[in-house]
Structure formats: C-alpha cells, structure tokens
C-alpha cells in the first residue's frame, strides 16, 4: 500500500515551492530533502537542540516539531534566506564570522535564524539579553562565549545598516 501524499505549496525565503509529501513529513525533512535547502540541520528531532530552527512568519520555530503540511501557507525563512539581497552576508552571519561564533557550523543555522528574529524584536540587547536570546539552542563546540558576543555585534551591525539605509 502506498502512503497518501499531499500536494503542498511552501513559501520559503520568498520563493514558492511545490512538493508532494506524506502527512508525516517533518518540515525539517521537507526543507532539506524535498526542497534541497540543506542549510537547515537536524540535531535531535525532539525539539531540544534548536539546530533546525527556522522562522515561520518571522518567529523562530523548531522545524522538526512541525509537519510540512502544517507549514503550508506560512512564510518560512531558513539560513539560506539570511544574506542581503546583494549577496553579502547579513548582519548576524557577518557577526558570527567576525566573532568566531562557530566552529563545526552544524548548530549555526539555528542560532542565526533565532538571533535574526531576536534582534528584530530587541535591536540593542544587553549581554544578559543576548544570552537569553540563544538560551534554547545547543552548541557543542564554542562554549557559547563568542556566540553571545556575536549577538551583540549582530545587533550593532543591523543598527548601523539601518542608519546607512536611512
């Protein structure tokens, strides 16, 4: 017996994708395997590590805790959608590079999406607020020291970017 599939449209990084997926296909798997957007990583599949975090209508959510069928109709942003329109690194990406906020890079996409939403809500976080922003994401390499620095630096870059644009 073949499993029934659902024809869905996923809006990801401003692009509409069509896919035929079984109801049980996790959003994380749909992004990675059906859409080929392998920047979103899967670290635990039980919602604890945060590696798979994407933005759903601008809010960070665990893509391993959503089904692709449930995500249809929402605007999804993955790490691939964080660069500037001209292809330059976005402020959070740039800050991670500057501050050595990553080592193996596997957890990084989840941090980048989380912080992107975080500094949109709080453009000038204190160090404590920066810590709070990333408190739900696991990293096994960096000891988080430079990630916290990167949050503050990203906010600074984002602020100066806005000033420049104004």
């Amino acid at each position, binding site marked *: 017996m073949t499993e029934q599939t659902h024809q869905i449209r996923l809006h990801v990084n401003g692009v509409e994708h069509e896919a035929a997926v079984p*109801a049980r296909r996790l959003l994380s798997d749909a992004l990675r395997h059906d859409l080929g957007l392998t920047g979103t990583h899967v670290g635990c599949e*039980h919602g604890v590590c*945060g590696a798979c975090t994407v933005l759903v209508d601008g809010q960070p959510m665990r893509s391993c805790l959503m*089904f692709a069928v449930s995500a249809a109709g929402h605007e999804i942003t993955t790490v691939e959608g964080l660069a500037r329109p001209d292809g330059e690194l976005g402020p959070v990406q740039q800050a991670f590079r500057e501050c050595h906020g990553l080592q193996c890079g596997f957890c990084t996409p989840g941090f980048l999406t989380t912080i992107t939403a975080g500094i949109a809500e709080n453009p000038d976080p204190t160090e404590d607020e920066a810590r*709070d922003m990333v408190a*739900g994401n696991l990293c096994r390499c960096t000891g988080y020291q430079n990630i916290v620095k990167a949050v503050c630096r990203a906010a600074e870059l984002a602020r100066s970017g806005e000033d420049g644009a104004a």
Partner: protein
Amino acid sequence: MKPAPFDYARPGTLEEALQALAGHPEAKVLAGGQSLVPLLSMRLAAPAVLVDINDLPDLDHVRVSADGVRIGALARHAAVLRDPDVARVQPLVPLALANVAHATIRNRGTTVGSLVHADAAAEMPMVLRLLDGSLDVVGPGGRRTIPVAELYVGPLESSLHHDEIAVEAFFPALAKHTGVAFEEIARRHGDYAMCGVAAVVTVDGDRVVSARAGYLSVSDIPTVVDLTDALDGSISDASLAAAAEVALEQLEPETDIHATADYRAHLARVLTARVVTAAHENAREARS
C-alpha cells in the same frame, strides 16, 4: 526518529474538526504539537489520524476582562506572555509561562494544548488548578465548561472525551488584596523543573486570610494545597515550615535520574517558604 504514518485532516471549521475526530477513535488533535510531535517521532504514540486545528477560525484569542483571562485554543504561549493586559489581570499566568520550555517552543506551543496534555511537571496545568480556572470544550453534544477540579483525573490524563476539542481556557483574575509568586528549580534553564511552586496569598492588613500553593513535579497530577490553617495568619519561619509540612503530606515526590525524592521534598519546603513569602509581600503591596 520519524513518525509512523497517519491520515491528516486540516478542517476549516469546528464542525468539520469534530466530525473528523468522531470518525476515528484513534484520532488526535494537533495544535502547537510541541509535546505531541516528539512523541510521534519517537513512535511512542501512533495515532491513525491527526486533526490539525490550526486553520480553525477565531481560536487564537487572548481576551482579558475584569473577571479573568480567556485564552483560545490556538493562542501561542508567546502571545499570552506578551500581552500586558494578562499580566495586569492575572500576573501568575506570565510568571509561570516564562518558565515554559524555551522561547522558540513558546512561539509554537499553545497554552490550551499544554493544559490538555495534563502533565504534572508542566507549569500551566498547575497554575490553572491553583487559580481554580476552567476549560471550555466542544463535542458532539455541544459546548461545556470543565472546572479544573474535574479536569485532571490521573497522570497525563484529563477528563476530556476523545471526541471533544478544548477551545478556551479561563484563568480567573487576581482577587483584591491578593499576591502571587512562582519559582521553580530545574537542572538546566528551560528544563522541566525538579520542583516548582506557585502561591496565591490574600491578606487583610498584614494578616494572611488565605494561602494556597500549587506544586510541579512532586506529584503525578497537578496538585494544590491550602496552607491557610498552617500559616495561622502570619508569615514566619515557623509558620512557613509548618505550611511546607502540610503541603508535603499531600505530595508524592519520586526519585528519578535528576533528583531524589528527598531532594524534591527539600526543594518543595524551600520553595514553599520563598513563594508564600513573596506572594504575601506582593499582596501587601497590592493593598496600597
């Protein structure tokens, strides 16, 4: 860790949702899914049908009135936590919500879903119980209100019928001359607590006229204990210690890999004293 296959329905109306549920004895409701999806992925649960209620209209409300807070089935924890009116009318709700997992989980998880999940280690069932709230559910027979006293019937078990959908929770407003407090101790920030305690204290002047406390992770169903008599009107080291002993008589802390039963009981004592004191303080401030 991939879910077993299931049929999926995403009804656009409550009627359709109820029909979908009624048609399958093994159907389950999917709202935020933050507790359910891990269970599915680990294949600890394998419902034949998932009824995704996220498209149902008019269920994402957070309505605040003088008598309390009404939270719709699709209101995310984060939306409730952000609402300044909720904090004003019933501050215990945001105090507890801030301790529900991590921010990212709160963006998707629903408060009503957490109530229905009926986990005695979770914050919101205990808070609903402590505040004496209620849950509105809709079933084939129409809508009914389940008082919280009748909601939690066993470990991870509520009195919802299989063919019913919870649509709204009601958290009563903070009464006059009343203060609340919440504190929990977890191994890591954001984890399930080893023990958590919330308190609601009402004063007349400095005198405690009512004190109740709710407990997390030290019993198998959400548990609330009336500490009024034990406190005998005043807050002191001795009365707080007596109150904690009264509470412990009704709690059943258990040993697991994170904490022994003795340690949980100890935390229940410490936290009882802390939150009752803090709630008392808040009540006295609220008075003026």
